[in-house]
């Protein structure tokens, strides 16, 4: 039964909110991300720099205490207690209110919006839906919805 995975301990996570203080978007971060996605570092002035939209991924992942990682190397604080404690990301949806710019200092507010049981092709699982709003000051820049598959 899929409901066996969705325990009261897991349900208690729904509504949980996490603050995410992001790394400021600097030219050096742009260069590091460009290399990470297989491109040469950029040249030219900051205002001409083409900033990959998905760079928010690196800005929003701060270093984690290795002791807080699961056996498979994933931070534990982002995973409701379901099944064997394993999981993967499902669908990710993004809305970009404006392009990112060097100098942006994003802050994220992540909320676990829901947990739902699902019968998968190979296994039963729980779908955790996390919604994160990234702001620069009062301005919403990115809204991210991530569906995490837990089993």
């Amino acid at each position, binding site marked *: 039964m899929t409901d066996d995975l969705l325990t009261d301990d897991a349900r208690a996570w729904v509504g949980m909110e996490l603050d995410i203080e992001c790394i400021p978007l600097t030219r050096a971060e742009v260069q590091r991300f460009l290399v990470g996605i*297989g491109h040469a570092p950029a040249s030219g002035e900051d205002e001409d720099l083409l900033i*990959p939209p998905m760079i928010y991924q690196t800005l929003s992942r701060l270093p984690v205490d290795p002791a807080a990682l699961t056996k498979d190397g994933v931070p534990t604080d982002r995973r409701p207690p379901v099944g064997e404690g394993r999981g*993967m*990301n499902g669908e990710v949806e993004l809305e970009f209110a404006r*392009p990112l710019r*060097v100098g942006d200092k994003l802050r994220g507010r992540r909320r676990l919006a829901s947990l739902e049981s699902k019968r998968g092709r190979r296994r039963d699982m729980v779908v955790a839906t996390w919604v994160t709003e990234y702001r620069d000051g009062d301005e919403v820049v990115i809204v991210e919805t991530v569906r995490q598959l837990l089993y």
Partner: protein
Amino acid sequence: MAPSVATGEQLPPITKQPNEVDLFLFSAAVWNSHRIHYEREYARAEGHRDIVVQGSLQANWLVEAMLSWSPGSTLLAFSFRNTSTAYVNETFVIGGRIAEVRHEPGGVHVVVDLQVEGPSGVTTVGRGTLRLARDGADDGSSGTGS
């Protein structure tokens, strides 16, 4: 500006063949320490046939396919979903098809259906919405893709 904008038009495909170093550099860039992306034996113990290509790296390929088709355009929305596992050193073709063209007050918006296809089939699907650049330049802002 993109050479033509019509529903059904195919984006020029791009090809990727990520090796172990590529996957390491991406994991380092996004602080992804999941062992299946760098430890072959662990990945195999987890039931994979080799080191696993990060789903979010494939998402970046989808964005790249859109923005290399229409340089200077602005990404307004993007979604993606990994549908099967992609493995290191395999060859992937990233392509897209224009699903919708909308003439909005701020410019032309184009919705593109996207996919990453490897030797065993499609590994990631996505959908993006671009506001097209006008005459090769958008509204003066940065924020285009790589």
